[in-house]
């Protein structure tokens, strides 16, 4: 029970990071972006490339940080990958979404996002192949926290959880303590009104893509650390991330965090009562349950 709860929190933190970006984009740009999860793959592969580069040039960076399986070069690579992924999100917007936003309606954007997802996924497979890859081939062994009940924790998991929580806290401070954060919230609430009060709308849109993209990259890298890196990360995670976003309430950053943990924990706990073949259905049951009880999501508000 406690073990499942712990594992659920870990998976939840990965989903939350992905859901924050999605909820921001869905709320401000008013469309369901099905290509968001592909940014997770972009981030994971970018980190893989930077990790390889840094490791090759500065061999002292290749040493692992005990007791983690992470290397210093990977830590550096994470930062670079976040920037690169954020920039690619801006680029995708510039190439595709902005053009459609100017001419088409929200539905066209949704369809375009499906197309973007396909293109990105296949570009990644073309560049890196379909093979699964890993940041480190070594297996990080779990540490026994308690024997009765049996509780096992991997150091990497603790790192991922703490790092995710720190990033979320940082983002919370930015949102609630800075002018930029207020502007961001204003744009999310009502772009036209925000523009009237002097907020540079196109700059804010770029910032939203940058933040969403870099958080997605972090989520993808953490997924890769915990699991493996392959070109279908986006396809595999798009539904749980959507479930987290919808359950939390579209537009609510805190809701997204909550939704991520909810989906992660519920999928893990479900295994205690359901046969494992049914666990992929759990996120959908959560969406249904939440929408029946609170049609706008747990922390979402009805849009005027």
């Amino acid at each position: 029970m406690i073990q499942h709860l712990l594992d659920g929190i870990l998976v939840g933190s990965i989903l939350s990071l992905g859901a924050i970006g999605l909820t921001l984009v869905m709320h401000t740009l008013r469309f369901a972006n099905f290509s968001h999860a592909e940014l997770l793959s972009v981030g994971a592969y970018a980190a893989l490339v930077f990790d390889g580069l840094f490791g090759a040039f500065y061999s002292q960076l290749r040493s692992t940080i005990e007791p983690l399986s992470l290397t210093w070069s990977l830590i550096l690579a994470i930062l670079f990958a976040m920037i690169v992924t954020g920039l690619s999100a801006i680029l995708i917007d510039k190439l595709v979404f902005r053009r459609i936003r100017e001419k088409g309606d929200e539905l066209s954007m949704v369809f375009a996002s499906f197309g973007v997802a396909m293109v990105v996924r296949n570009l990644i497979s073309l560049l890196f192949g379909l093979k699964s890859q890993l940041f480190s081939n070594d297996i990080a062994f779990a540490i026994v926290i308690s024997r009765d009940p049996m509780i096992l924790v991997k150091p990497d998991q603790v790192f991922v959880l703490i790092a995710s929580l720190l990033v979320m806290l940082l983002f919370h401070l930015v949102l609630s303590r800075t002018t930029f954060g207020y502007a961001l919230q204003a744009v999310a609430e009502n772009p036209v009104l925000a523009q009237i009060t002097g907020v540079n709308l196109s700059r804010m849109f770029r910032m939203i893509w940058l933040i969403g993209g870099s958080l997605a990259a972090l989520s993808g890298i953490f997924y890769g650390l915990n699991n493996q890196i392959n070109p279908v990360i986006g396809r595999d995670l798009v539904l749980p991330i959507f479930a987290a976003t919808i359950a939390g309430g579209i537009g609510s950053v805190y809701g997204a965090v909550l939704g991520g943990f909810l989906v992660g924990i519920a999928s893990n706990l479900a295994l205690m009562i359901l046969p494992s073949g049914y666990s992929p259905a759990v996120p959908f049951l959560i969406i249904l349950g939440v929408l029946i009880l609170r049609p706008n999501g747990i922390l979402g508000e009805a849009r005027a």
Partner: protein
Amino acid sequence: MFVRFFKSFRCLRQALLLGMVGFSSTLYAQNCTTKIGAVLPTSVDWGRPIAATAQFAVDLANEAGGVAGCQVEMVLRDTQVDPKVGVDAAKALVDLEKVPVLLGAVSSGVTIPILTSVAVPAGVMEVSCCSSSTKITALAEEGKTKGLWFRTFATSGVQAAVGTMLARDQGYKSVVVLYKNDDWGQDISKLTVRSMKSLGINVTNSIAINDGQASYRAEVTEALKGNPEGIYMALYPKEGISVVREWLSLGGSQKMIMANSMKSDELKDSVGLKYLKNALGTDTASPRVESASKFVEMYKARFNSEPNGPGLANSFDATMIALLAMEAAGPNASGTQIAAQVGKVTDPKGTPITADTAGFKKAKEILNSGGSVMYQGATGNVRFDANGDVSAPAVAWSFTESGTKEERYITLDEVDAFMATMQ
């Protein structure tokens, strides 16, 4: 443009086929043609060689003078690996071409609907080269195949039995079973659990693994409950990598048994050879007999390549046995009459015959004089059980630096004897 190109391609192919038929019929002038149907996935690249191998067997029989006094024409239709397309194709062959025998299909999901909704109702014999699902065995046991069904590919039961045999030989007292959550995985895990239990090996749990999950920790945590001594896995490499790494990192046992699907370099590299020292795998194999090596030679002479694709030896034998049974049944026989003769051409007490033109000629003589023959083909001495299933030899393999190596070859007799002890 594309359509026109496609059409002209089709015309060309038809012309070629007609040319071939014309060519062979001028060589062996006979005044009748018997048709047999083939429903195979020729639109996928691994399906075409299966069809070509079936045609190869037909050509050999025609060189020996055809069956029951007539030249044989194989009418080939594509299934596109789609049950609906396959059923339509089989229906057309049975209703329009009036074939008494259908060769195919490959995927169990296509074979089963053809068998139940076309072949059995029409009294047509169906021989598959490649379907392994034990669902068909169950159908046969319920009497729903009416003795019209045969396959030359071993069921998943063989691999499940060999996995159990390895667990027993390694002395594992308790094993947890993890399986891919699809038709194949469910089938093989059910069989493995059953055979392990019958040998007194404690199966602590059997857990379905869905592909594309964010984490497999919950599944692995469940699997660790009850401290199983060993782990049996019927997974595909992608989830296999995540599951095995998770399993090891949580302190799971390195005593692993894996199905053939996990015979993958990707898996070996991602998990690390040092953790796979005690991992053993299972797979079915071609028998190490003269007739099997002879097929390889014949295949190379005809196609200028090794018969490495899936189901080639099996397709050859399926076709040969169908043709021999047609010969034994005599002219204008129905599917039921032909199916009834299969025992006579795969009779362990019969005269051994080789799988070539000379062997076919010899078989014709013996069958016409009322004797029985033992067909020795590409998959050895084919012997069907009461449900139309065959058994096959198996291999145990392990991982090495360069890939995998064979640990042990388990002969057909050993497999059969072992499976018999479990019933």
